[in-house]
């Protein structure tokens, strides 16, 4: 199926006058079949007029009339470095789970370009609301990757400060964060932080599955009617656990934006340059008060949904193999070699750095202390609740009783 199969259904006004002046439009050959519609959802994986791309899968630099970007060789190398390092600690997280060190891991493999492109477009005054796979965005917000471990090892629910990092806590309930982000963006607007080059914006991350959630729909309504500086960044990785894209939608996701009255753009999510360019544009629109914007980053989840998942049950290896050819890191590597004189020494250097990061990540994981039992009760409320305090005291007192037993045994009771 070629992308041409996804064309908008013929509008009655476009049709030849057949003398009918009212009633529903007659069925025409132009109306796509169900199969054609579903094929159209995936069609732009091969490129197409509605896909913003600046770097082809072969590493060739192409231009786009609306979303070009001028980056130095050093900046391109930095983007490459970001993607390699993020992939490296993501793989380490996966391995740590397999070795029983983490309860679960959520792989980002294959989505590095979408996340680094979007993450590097954000400024310090901006706010990002992640779902739970946004390790690459966390990296761009300056979080140390080790800060992500606590959630997956089960020592905390997020150890970083959302306000100072500009990176909200991971959100597990699908789509909740879209509304939280819409509210935050409304606050930026109410604070008068919108309207010029120095304006602030909010970017919220969610997947294709989340677009079926009411909260994401409501976030688009709220963002639209309050003209909030909100970039809705959908990583369409084609699968919501085992549910394919056609189980979420019958229109390409970016086209939904039109129904809310703001721009929707589909970008090649495996192209870090395009992802960066489109994100910068969208954030800039928001800074100037022209938000919201919906970005659909067309990408692919190369690994499982989480380490509890088995994608071989629901998707074919052909699909995976096809997407391997669009790898976001490889295409930038080829481009750097061909056009920017990147030599082996550079790639070796990045590789060495990534290995060091992975080792540090692993060591940190092993050395994470057991949380204090008091953490169960701490910071439940800003103003402590007497009942919670009493329950804490009871548990800690109970546990203290155990601590005395070894000493008693040493005393030679027997």
């Amino acid at each position, binding site marked *: 199926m070629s992308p041409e199969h996804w064309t908008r259904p013929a509008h009655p006004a476009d049709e030849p006058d057949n003398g009918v002046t009212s009633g529903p439009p007659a069925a025409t050959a132009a109306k796509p079949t169900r199969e054609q519609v579903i094929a159209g959802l995936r069609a732009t994986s091969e490129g197409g007029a509605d896909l913003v791309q600046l770097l082809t899968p072969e590493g060739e630099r192409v231009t786009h009339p609306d979303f070009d970007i001028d980056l130095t060789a050093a900046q391109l190398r930095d983007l490459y470095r970001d993607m390699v390092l993020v992939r490296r600690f993501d793989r380490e997280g996966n391995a740590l789970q397999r070795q029983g060190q983490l309860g679960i891991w959520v792989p980002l493999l294959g989505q590095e370009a979408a996340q680094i492109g979007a993450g590097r477009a954000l400024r310090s005054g901006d706010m990002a*609301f992640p779902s739970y796979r946004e390790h690459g965005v966390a990296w761009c917000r300056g979080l140390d990757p080790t800060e992500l471990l606590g959630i997956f090892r089960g020592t*905390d*629910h*997020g*150890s970083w*400060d*959302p*306000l100072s990092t500009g990176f*909200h*806590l991971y*959100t597990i*309930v699908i789509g*909740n964060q*879209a*509304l*939280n*982000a*819409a*509210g*935050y*963006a*409304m*606050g*930026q607007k*109410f*604070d008068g932080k919108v309207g010029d080059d120095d304006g602030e914006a909010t970017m919220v991350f969610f997947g294709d599955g989340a677009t079926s959630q*009411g*909260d994401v729909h*409501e*976030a688009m*309504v*709220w963002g639209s*009617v309050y003209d909030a500086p909100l970039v809705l960044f959908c990583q369409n990785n084609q699968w919501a656990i085992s549910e394919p894209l056609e189980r979420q939608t019958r229109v390409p996701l970016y086209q939904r934006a039109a129904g809310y009255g703001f721009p929707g753009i589909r970008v090649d999510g495996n192209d870090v340059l395009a992802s960066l360019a489109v994100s910068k544009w969208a954030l800039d629109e928001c800074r100037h008060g022209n938000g919201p914007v919906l970005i659909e980053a067309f990408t692919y989840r190369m690994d499982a949904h989480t380490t509890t998942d088995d994608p071989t049950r629901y998707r074919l290896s052909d699909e995976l193999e096809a997407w391997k050819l669009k790898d976001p890191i490889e295409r930038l590597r080829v481009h750097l070699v061909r056009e920017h004189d990147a030599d082996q020494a550079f790639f070796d250097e990045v590789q060495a750095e990534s290995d060091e990061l992975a080792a540090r990540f692993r060591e940190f994981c092993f050395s994470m202390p057991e949380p204090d039992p008091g953490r169960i009760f*701490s*910071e*439940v*409320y*800003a*103003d402590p*609740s*007497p*009942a*919670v305090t009493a329950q804490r005291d009871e548990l800690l007192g109970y546990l203290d009783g155990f601590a005395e037993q070894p000493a008693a045994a040493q005393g030679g009771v027997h």
Partner: protein
Amino acid sequence: MAAPAMERTDVTNGSARPDATRTVTMAKSLNMGLRSALEQDPKVLVMGEDVGKLGGVFRVTDGLQKDFGEHRVLDTPLAESGIIGTAVGLAIRGYRPVCEIQFDGFIFPGYDQIVSQLAKLHFRSQGKVKMPVVVRVPFGGGIGAVEHHSESPESLFAHIGGLKVVSCSNPVDAYWMLRQAIECDDPVLFFEPKRRYYEKAELNTEAQPPPLFASRVLRRGTAATIATYGPTVPTCLAAANAAAEEGTELEVIDLRSLSPLDLGPVFESVRRTGRLVLASEAPPESSITSEITARVQQECFYSLEAPVLRVTGFDVPYPPTKLEKHFLPDLDRVLDAVDRSLAF
């Protein structure tokens, strides 16, 4: 069973300066509370469906948008998850949103955001993110409304760690409790007994208010204790007046705070009276009244002269309005429970 009348606490404040005291309905006192909070803190927002030009379906927000503008008093799109979810985001940004849910039965689309985000963000962030959000919920029956307009879902929220749940029962508490809830850095579910919106009392806005998360003895008595909250407080006070005419002095406690529960005054009272009757419109199973029953038997086991008895709604969906007189605890059902308690 004659017992001497003891101190009676009126719901109005004492020592009021005449010019600071007005006779107001509860709807008006809530309006005054919101107005005062909007005036004092530019970060306070009022948001919900119809809260602006219309002034809310019960007119609690009447005139606020006109005076504070549409960015302080927000007429929102019609979606409860959206109201709560954006309030969470505004709170992260440093605002103090006061959300209005039009009716109790409409809170469920917002329940996900309340439970999943609002309740948990302070804990998850280890205190780095504050959630000073108030969710106002007109609740309970007795106004002859169609279905989904007369429910008592407060126990569902009291069960959730991270939330605070309160219910006012009179205009004076309504004013002060709302002010204090807005000042609180924790999320507060604020249940307003809608059939009491237009009952009046004298409100002194310069008085010293009692603490928010505390129950309050409204009437002293020795024969038995009645603990209640929200719409059934006036019912129980009326029952106590009726009992007093027959020489039975009942102690009446307004719980006010449902999470955390302030049961100290209840324990103290039960230790004196030996008897406890609980009244609430909510279905009894897994409710505020079942929680109090459990804790009283745990704390006051040797003081009890009778089992704890409950006068409540039933474990059914709220009935059609022609039947609600049988569903809602009324004066006779309360007195019947008191008689059964005294007969042990």
